[in-house]
């Protein structure tokens, strides 16, 4: 298990890695993860040490009355750990909300078996398939829906995911720190083509974005 943990810390990078964030939402969540991991590791060690004590050093274990074991371990410990954790979690969640202030750019994502189509209202209704074009350093609201079954929209390095549900339009706030290429995928089982239902994400410098959308050689452009 030690070797596995070392391998873990070393191998965090990857095109779909949540541990290699490239946007503020993914960064917040990655930080949250490291806090959770540390806390969990400490708690696990604590319980295993206590278990070991009961078997190997019973004279120490017996000094604590059964009632105290139960109250301290079953009530006090969870209260101390869970209260700040849930508060921290909810504060983080609030920060990720798609608030109207901040002038987000709106892009529509339409999922169907087994393709993604993106429409850019700000770009005059340009549409691309299989490729999502984003400006760097600007908050974006992706409005996600599905034409058939439930899919999910996920760019792990930028933010969490949101389901694409027919009849619903779900809103996800994402932002990319820097220009570059990233990967996105469908994350909800949607039938035989689920494994291959992916899309590329091209993040343009903010100043170049409008021109790039208007350009005739835009990657993935669908002819109208």
């Amino acid at each position: 298990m030690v070797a596995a943990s070392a391998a873990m810390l070393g191998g965090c990078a990857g095109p779909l890695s949540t541990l290699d964030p490239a946007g503020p939402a993914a960064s917040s969540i990655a930080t949250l993860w490291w806090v959770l991991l540390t806390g969990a590791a400490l708690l696990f060690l604590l319980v295993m040490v206590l278990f070991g004590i009961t078997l190997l050093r019973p004279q120490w274990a017996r000094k604590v009355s059964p009632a105290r074991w139960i109250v301290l371990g079953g009530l006090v410990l969870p209260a101390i750990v869970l209260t700040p954790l849930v508060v921290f979690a909810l504060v983080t969640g609030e920060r990720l909300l798609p608030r109207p202030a901040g002038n987000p750019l709106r892009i529509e994502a339409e999922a169907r078996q087994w393709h993604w189509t993106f429409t850019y209202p700000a770009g005059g209704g340009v549409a691309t398939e299989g490729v999502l074009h984003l400006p760097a350093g600007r908050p974006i609201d992706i409005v996600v829906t599905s034409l058939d079954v439930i899919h999910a929209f996920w760019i792990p390095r930028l933010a969490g995911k949101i389901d694409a549900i027919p009849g619903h339009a779900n809103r996800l706030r994402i932002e990319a720190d820097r220009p570059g290429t990233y990967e996105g995928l469908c994350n909800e089982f949607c039938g035989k083509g689920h494994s291959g239902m992916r899309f590329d994400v091209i993040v343009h410098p903010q100043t170049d974005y409008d021109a790039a959308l208007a350009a005739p050689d835009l990657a993935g452009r669908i002819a109208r």
Partner: protein
Amino acid sequence: MSAPVTRGTAGPPPVSAGDLWWLVPGFALWFSALSAVYALHHIGCTFGWSSGAIHLGLALALVAHLAAIALFWHFEMRRVRGHAHGETGRFLHWVILGTLLAAFVKTLLTIVPALFLTVCL
């Protein structure tokens, strides 16, 4: 063989089986509180209530349910006054109070955070 008897030895009267229902109100109220706030928030968002109105509604629902749980604590304390307790009666009383306390804390901790969160997003 001795004369047949239909009841066991004398002792404290048995705790009525109906008293077992007292195990339910605590957590039933918690479930009611959860349903109420979930529905209230959804209905408020659907019908365009203001953020203040929704939060107020949640707070009122919370306080009402906490008060109801506290009321059942009072009922339970009153139920056992004047009872010949016996082991089973004492056990049931302890467990009932335990469920009421746990339900109170759970209701409080589950719903209070929402009073500080953004509505409808």
